[in-house]
């Protein structure tokens, strides 16, 4: 079992002939992902790693049915590519582009919500279920980082992901599924929206969230825990505790806070809801050991 993507899902790749698209298509297939068809306007008739390429998504799915769309498309074209995938009925879409205009991101998320689809990203490495399949760009071949296991991971940060999963593995665990919701202020899918999948996934014992300054996604996780909607142990890693107020460090998420979103607020909300919060990557492993020990004693 896995969350979002497994070996049964037929994946369409938009932007498959580009440098990133073809490189990661090769790796997705090597991991075991069922990439069945690709799209790049103007390149119909070519193939990438044996995968046939079409001009448009409609032409592609008319010949080759697919379940999930993986977008290697530049940020300025991502809105169009997401709408193209939604138009063909895709309910699982991953967009990795870093630099999607904010107002495009709003329209992407709105369209996804109104179609009942999940759009993961942008500004993400994507999603992976180690040992099974991935939609995105993960160095799954580094064993000390992507060992298969029973810990779900959700992250707003690409660069912290490897750092934290390495600590999960070092503590003796592995990863069931990892969802990179992305570092943009308006991600297509939010932590709390993915929680039901982790709750119902028998392959996941606990979830690690890698949060950040700004926004309210961590608070929404706390709400889901308090309401009882999510009942598995949660370990949260939150960086930026010492960040000076009012300075914008990296990801744009922080600016759209509306008076909320400080790391201290997030930690308070999560701890109140029963999550264990780490402020160093190494602690994530230790807190997982404690949480799962406690859970198994129940």
């Amino acid at each position, binding site marked *: 079992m896995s969350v979002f993507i497994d070996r049964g899902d037929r994946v369409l790749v938009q932007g498959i002939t580009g440098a*990133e698209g073809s490189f990661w298509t090769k790796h997705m297939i090597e991991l075991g992902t069922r990439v069945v068809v690709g799209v790049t306007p103007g390149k119909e008739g070519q193939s990438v790693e044996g995968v046939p390429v079409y001009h448009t998504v409609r032409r592609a799915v008319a010949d080759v049915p697919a379940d999930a769309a993986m977008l290697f498309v530049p*940020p*300025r074209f991502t809105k169009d590519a997401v709408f193209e995938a939604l138009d063909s009925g895709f309910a699982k879409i991953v967009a990795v582009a*870093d*630099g*999607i*205009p*904010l*107002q*495009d991101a*709003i*329209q992407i*998320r*709105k369209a996804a*919500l109104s179609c009942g689809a999940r759009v993961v990203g942008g500004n993400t*490495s994507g999603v992976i279920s180690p040992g099974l399949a991935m939609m995105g*760009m*993960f*160095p799954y071949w*580094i064993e000390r980082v992507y060992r298969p296991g029973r810990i779900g991971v959700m*992250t*707003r*940060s*690409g*660069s*912290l*992901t*490897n*750092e934290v999963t*390495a600590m999960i593995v070092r503590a003796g665990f592995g990863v069931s599924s990892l969802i990179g919701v992305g*570092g943009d*202020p*308006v*991600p297509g899918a*939010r932590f709390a929206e993915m929680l039901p999948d982790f709750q119902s996934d028998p392959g996941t014992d606990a979830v690690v969230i*890698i949060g*950040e*300054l700004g*926004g*309210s996604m961590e608070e*929404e996780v706390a709400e889901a825990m308090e309401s009882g909607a999510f009942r598995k142990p949660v370990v949260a890693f939150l*960086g*930026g*505790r*010492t*960040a000076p107020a009012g*300075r914008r*460090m*990296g*990801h744009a998420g922080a*600016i*759209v*806070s*509306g*008076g*909320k979103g400080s790391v201290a607020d997030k930690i308070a909300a999560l701890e109140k809801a029963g999550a264990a919060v780490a*402020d*160093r*990557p*190494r602690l994530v492993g230790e807190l997982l050991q404690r949480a799962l020990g406690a859970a198994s004693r129940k």
Partner: protein
Amino acid sequence: MKLFEYQAKDAFAERGIPVPERRLCATPEEVRAAAAAIGCPCVVKSQVLRGGRGKAGLVRLVASPEEAGAYGSELLTGGLGAAHGVRRVLVEEAVDIGRELYVSITVDPLAATALVLACAEGGVDIEELARTAPERILRERVDLDVGLLPFQARDLGYALGLGPELSGSFVTLLAGLWRVFREKDAELAEINPLFVTKARGDRPAALVAGDGKLAIDDNAAFRQGGAEPSREYFDSELAFRAAVEGIPYLQFDGDVSLMCAGAGLTTVVYDLVNYEGGSVANYLEFGGPNYKKAVRAMELCLANDPKVILIVTFGTIARADVMADGIAEAIAKLKPRCPIVACIRGTGEEKAVETLRAAGLDPLFDTEEAVRRAVSLSKAPRAEATRAETTGGRA
């Protein structure tokens, strides 16, 4: 990117939002002449991007052109202005203020809409108010595709306590602010305070934008005529040079110069340096699209004369071997005199390790260990650091 008040007000005026009569000035003489032309009393306002200009003495109501000119000198050629990086000044007619309101448009990431915020008390710090008295902030969600509808603005106008006439003006004003928000790809378009002028004789009360804040989405620069970054938007010369390169950079004044990949990881390394008792000289993200810019990044770091450079990455697309190549090249070119601690992992890390060793470094694999080593080096006397440099940058 935040724009200056004068730019925001130009964008407002182009879209029918009433703004005070105003002139942008770059010399004290221009300030004096503008005050004479506009009429006194008038307001002289430093054009800087920081908030709290009033408290910092950067805005003043002046009674005469002479006073305007004298204050203009303080700001444009004197110590006060220099301390705050004032380069331009806006001279503005004084408004006969009856009330002050607040209104802005930003985004609601959860609902995936735009969000109009309004408050009957203007001039406030809205983030502070959101925390302490959220019920006093009116919120109106606006579908980005459908756009702001007049009834939404009208309802806000009446809720702000404006009468029929002023509610009508508010509908027009908010339609203009909506156009600013959409057409400029804004992250935030704010009027704070929004003045309601006093009715005087046969001139009825009216709305006037007292201040203007406009933050533009850098990601949309390609469809916004994409102006190059300009020095005046940045606190420091280094921050400006970094922006020209497209490298995220923040200036601090500690000892450890960060040259890390990814916002999340860099922020955590910043935390860890502080947890370990060290201090940060600069925050610099050398990853994503910049992972081949090691030489430029290290140049920026060295300009701070740090005690140590701390490089931490865990890259996938930003390949470890490519980054290592760049670092080796930078060391060869720039011959840094301070020690360098490198912790470079991810795609191609085996090759990266070889490259770093060949460049005289001692690569690590654990972030916390790297931070501890860097902080410890940053506390050593310079002499030791210099010794490290003589061994080829090995830390």
